[in-house]
């Protein structure tokens, strides 16, 4: 699982560089995100703009990370491609995650 991260004020922006967040990548993703949270990054923007495939295992890992982060106000998702966004809608995850088109919107939302 390849990610890159940077700080924007109190918000940690994590960009997923893998094309696929699937059953193979799910555990690795969860471990990486858990590490960020345990290392004291309570506000995280997850930039998914490079991800073009998410399956139910990837989604499950994201739910697990959301729970660990403490919920809605702590983690935001941005940049999902149209087809990944439809997967979120199909599984109602668009109501569980705070989702934004632009990274800057997600950072602003968590910074408030």
């Amino acid at each position, binding site marked *: 699982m390849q990610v890159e991260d940077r700080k924007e004020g109190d918000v940690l922006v994590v960009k997923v560089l893998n094309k696929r967040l699937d059953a193979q990548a799910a555990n690795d993703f969860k471990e990486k995100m858990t590490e960020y949270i345990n290392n004291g990054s309570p506000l995280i923007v997850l930039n998914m703009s490079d991800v073009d*495939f998410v399956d139910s295992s990837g989604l*499950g890992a994201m739910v697990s990370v959301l729970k660990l982060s403490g919920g809605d106000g702590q983690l935001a998702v941005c940049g999902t491609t149209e087809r990944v966004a439809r997967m979120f809608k*199909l599984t109602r995850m668009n*109501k569980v995650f705070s989702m934004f088109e632009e990274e800057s919107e997600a950072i602003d939302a968590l910074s408030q």
Partner: protein
Amino acid sequence: MQIEDRKERYKRIKLVIASNLEDVSLIGIVINKLCSSIPLSDTDSYQIELCVVEAVNNSIEHAYGNEKGHEVEVIFTLYPDRLIVDVCDTGKPMDQECMEQKDVSPLEIDSNDLDNIAEQGRGLPIIKAIMDSMTYKTQSGKNCLTLKKNIWS
């Protein structure tokens, strides 16, 4: 390969992968390309890829218990008005009752109750929500999940 079957034309390709989660993306990529070439829309191709990936994951994780060294077969058949994908393994059969209970209800969630939102168990409900039908059969030690999607004729 193009075949005449009871006067109905179809095209078929069989793909086989080892029971490694690392290899499932190979199946996904091929299925997506096949769907795009029909042609189906980008979203439809992705959704069918998703269903096939979910089915293959189920075979590897549940039928084979993540044990390597087995095979999962994916047979993609394109008819003029529908496509059929069979995902077959020779592992532990899926509980038929469990299969019948898998409707789309696990996708209905209370978004305000984060603790009770499941982290797994969405594979079959996703398939049910996207495909027009899903059937499961075990015969002579071979389990096949058959997915059907109607397409334009």
